[in-house]
C-alpha cells in the first residue's frame, strides 16, 4: 500500500496518462514508424532548402521503385538487374506522349505509364522466368542493356536536332503533368506533395499485396519452390504475376521520375539505373516492406551529401558504404531498426514483447 502511494505521487493525472498511453500505443505499434515517417515527410519541406526538398522527392520516387523491385527480389528471391526496363518504359511513355503527341494530362499519361511496363513484363516474363539465380541475373541485365541500345538508336525516342539529324538522346524537356483540376497547376512545391500522396498509395497497396495469401505464397516460393509445387501451387504463374506487379510499380516510379527530372534518356534503361533498387533493397533490408524505403533514404542522401562535400571522392564513400553494409548489416539496416523499435516498444509502451 505504502509503495503504491509513493509510486502514485510521481505519476501524471489519469486522463493525461490515458491519452499518452494511447498515443504511445499507436506510435509504438505496428504502423508507428510509417505514421512518424509520413508526418516527417509532410512537415519537413518548408523547413529545408529547395535542394533537400528535391532530394526528398527523388527519394520517394526511388522508394516506390525499390519497393516494387523488392517484390521480386526480397519476397520472391529473384535478383533482377533489369528493372530499369520497366522504369525507363514508364518514363519514356510520359515523355514521348508529351513530345510527339503533346499530351500532358496526368489521367492519360499515368495509366499508360503503368500499362506499357506491364505489357513489357508480360512479354518478357516467359523469357526471363525460365531461369533463376545467376542466369536470371545475367538475362535481366542483358535485356536491360538491349533496351538501352534500342532507345539509343530509335529515332522516335530522341529529339530531332539540327538538319534533321538526331539531336540529344532521349527527351529533355518533360514538364509537370496536367491534373485537369481547374486552378491547380503543379509547381516544384506542390509536385512534392503529389509524389508523397503517390508514395503513400503505393505503400498501402504493396502492404496489402505482401500481407495477402499471394504475398505469403511468394515467400514460400523463395524458401522452396519444389515444395510449393508439391503443395499444388502453380509457381510459374505466381512468379509471372509478381513480375508484372513489380513492373507496374517501376513504371509508376519511372513516370514520376520523368516529371521530376525533366529529362529521360537511354541510361535510365541500363544497369546504372537497374542496380539502384537492388542496392537500396539490400542495404535497407529485403525481407521487409519498408526496407527498400530505408535503403532509398540512405543511398540517395548519402550520394547527395557526399557529392557536395566531397566533390571528387564521393564515389569512394558510396562504394565503401556498400561494402560496410554488406559485411556488417547483412539483413539490412531496416531489419535492425525494426528490432530496435520493438525493443523500444517493449521498454516504454507496455506492449507485449
Amino acid at each position, binding site marked *: 500500500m505504502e509503495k503504491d502511494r509513493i509510486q502514485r505521487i510521481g505519476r501524471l493525472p489519469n486522463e493525461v496518462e490515458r491519452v499518452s498511453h494511447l498515443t504511445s500505443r499507436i506510435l509504438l505499434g505496428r504502423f508507428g514508424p510509417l505514421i512518424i515517417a509520413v508526418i516527417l515527410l509532410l512537415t519537413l519541406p518548408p*523547413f*529545408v*532548402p*529547395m*535542394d*533537400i526538398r*528535391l532530394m526528398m522527392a*527523388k527519394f520517394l520516387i526511388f522508394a516506390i521503385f525499390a519497393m516494387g523491385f523488392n517484390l521480386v527480389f526480397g519476397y520472391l528471391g529473384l535478383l533482377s538487374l533489369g528493372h530499369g526496363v520497366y522504369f525507363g518504359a514508364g518514363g519514356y511513355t510520359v515523355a514521348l506522349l508529351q513530345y510527339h503527341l503533346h499530351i500532358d494530362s496526368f489521367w492519360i499519361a499515368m495509366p499508360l505509364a503503368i500499362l506499357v511496363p506491364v505489357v513489357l513484363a508480360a512479354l518478357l516474363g516467359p523469357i526471363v522466368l525460365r531461369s533463376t539465380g545467376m542466369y536470371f541475373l545475367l538475362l535481366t541485365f542483358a535485356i536491360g542493356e538491349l533496351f538501352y541500345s534500342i532507345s*539509343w538508336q530509335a529515332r522516335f525516342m530522341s*529529339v530531332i*536536332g*539540327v*538538319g534533321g*539529324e*538526331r*539531336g*540529344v*538522346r*532521349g527527351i*529533355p*524537356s518533360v*514538364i509537370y503533368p496536367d491534373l485537369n483540376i481547374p486552378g491547380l497547376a503543379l509547381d516544384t512545391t506542390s509536385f512534392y506533395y503529389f509524389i508523397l500522396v503517390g508514395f503513400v498509395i503505393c505503400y498501402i497497396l504493396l502492404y496489402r499485396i505482401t500481407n495477402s495469401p499471394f504475398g505469403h505464397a511468394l515467400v514460400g516460393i523463395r524458401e522452396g519452390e519444389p515444395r510449393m509445387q508439391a503443395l499444388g501451387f502453380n509457381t510459374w504463374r505466381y512468379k509471372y504475376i509478381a513480375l508484372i506487379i513489380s513492373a507496374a510499380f517501376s513504371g509508376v516510379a519511372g513516370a514520376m521520375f520523368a516529371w521530376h*527530372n*525533366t*529529362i529521360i*534518356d537511354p*541510361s535510365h534503361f541500363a544497369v546504372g539505373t537497374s542496380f539502384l533498387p537492388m542496392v537500396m533493397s539490400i542495404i535497407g533490408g529485403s525481407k521487409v516492406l519498408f526496407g527498400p524505403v530505408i535503403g532509398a533514404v*540512405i543511398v540517395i*542522401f*548519402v550520394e547527395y*551529401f557526399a*557529392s*557536395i*562535400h566531397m*566533390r*571528387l571522392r*564521393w*564515389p569512394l564513400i558510396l562504394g565503401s558504404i556498400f561494402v*560496410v553494409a554488406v559485411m*556488417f*548489416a547483412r539483413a539490412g*539496416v531496416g531489419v*535492425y*531498426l525494426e528490432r*530496435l523499435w520493438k525493443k523500444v516498444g517493449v521498454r516504454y509502451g507496455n506492449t507485449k514483447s
Partner: protein
Amino acid sequence: MKNKKFLLIVVSVILVVGLLLSLGACAKAPATPTATTPAPTTSAKPIKIGALIDLTGPIADMGPRFKEGIDLALEQLNYTIAGRPVEVIFEDSGSSPTTAVERMKKLHESDGVKVVIGPLMGDQQSAVAPYADQQKVIYVGYINSTTGPVADYGTFLAYPATCVGQQRPSGWYLYEDKGYRTMATLGSDYGGGHEYIAGAIYGFEERGGTVVHKVWAPIGSPDFSPYMAAMPTKAEADVLVVFLSSGEDAARCLLAYANEKAKRDLPPVFELIVDVFTPQQYKDLESVVVGMYAQSTYLPLRDDPVNNAFVAAFKAKYGQTPVIQQNAYTNMMVYAQALEITGGDDSYEAMWNALTNRDFQTPQGPLRYSSTGEGLSNTYIAQIQKIGGEILPVVVKTYELATKDPYVP
C-alpha cells in the same frame, strides 16, 4: 554476433545523426566548398557564380581543366568584381544530364546563383534549358554549344558559337582553300557530334561540295578499325572529316587510321575541334598527327596581346600551355566584365543586356553574343606542327566572326 549488432547500431545512429546534422547545416547556410581563398577586405554581399563541371563519369577529364581556367581568372580578378567579393561554386555534373539538372537546381535554389558557367555536354545543356529559361538563369557552354537551347530558349550563351556555326567555315576552307569536292565524315554519335559534322557539311555543301560517306561511332568505341576498313579511298573522297568527343576516342581513331593508311590510300584527315587533345596526347600521337590540318577553337600560339598575356599567366601558374582551359577562363572573364557593367547586378535582364550585342576581347579572339545568345567568334584553321619539342596547332587561316548558325533565326 553481439559485437556486430552493436556496431550496426552505432553505424545507424551515426548515419542518422550525420543526416540530421547535415540537414541542419544546410538549412542554416550552404556549406559548399568554393574555389576561393577568403575574399579581401570588403564586407559587401558576395557575388555568387555557379560552375558545372564534370568531375566523375566518362568525361571526368574535362572538369579539372575548366576549373584551372576559372581559378586563373579569379586570381587575376583578385576575387573581386564591382567592389564585391566573388564566389564560384563548383558542382559536379557527373557526365550525366540528370545530375546536371539536379546540380543546376541546387545552385539556383540553394545557393541563389543566377549565372552559371557550363555545362559541357550538349544533352546536359538541353536538359537544363527549360529550367534555366523558366528561372531566368544564364548559362554558357564551354566549347560545345548545341543549337537547341539557343534557338528554343532564352538564357543560354553559345560559346564560342554553336557547334554548327563554328564549323561552317571549316566546310568553306575545305572547299575553297584545299580544293576538295567530296567528303567522308566520321563523328561521335551524340548531339554535339551530329551538330559539328552538320556544320562542316553545311559550309562544304553550300559552296558546292558533296558528302559521299557518313559514319557515326558510339562514344567510347574501343575499336575504330572496322570503321577505317570501310572508309573510302582518295579516289572516292577527297577528305575525311573527323570529330570525336574526347581525346581518347580521337587518339584511338587516329591510330586505327594510321594502320589502315599503311594499306590503302585513305584521304587526309581533317579533325574538327582538335582541342580535345591534351599536349601529352599530341606527344604520344606524334607520328600520326604532325602535318594534319584541323579546326581548332583556340590556338595558344596565336600572336595577339590579349592571348600572349593569358598564355604567359597560365604557364606561370600551371607550368603548361593552355588549351581548353582558355574557354573556362574566358567565360569567367566575360561574366566579370558584364557584372562590372551592371554594377554587380546579376539579374537576368541586366546581365543579358550587358552580355549581348557587345564586343569582348578574349584570348581566343573577338567575341560577340547576338540577342539570342548565339556567339560570334573566330574560326581557326590550323596545322599540327612540331615546334621546339612541343607539338601544337599553328594558325593557317582565320575566319573572322563568321560563325553564324544557319539554324538559329
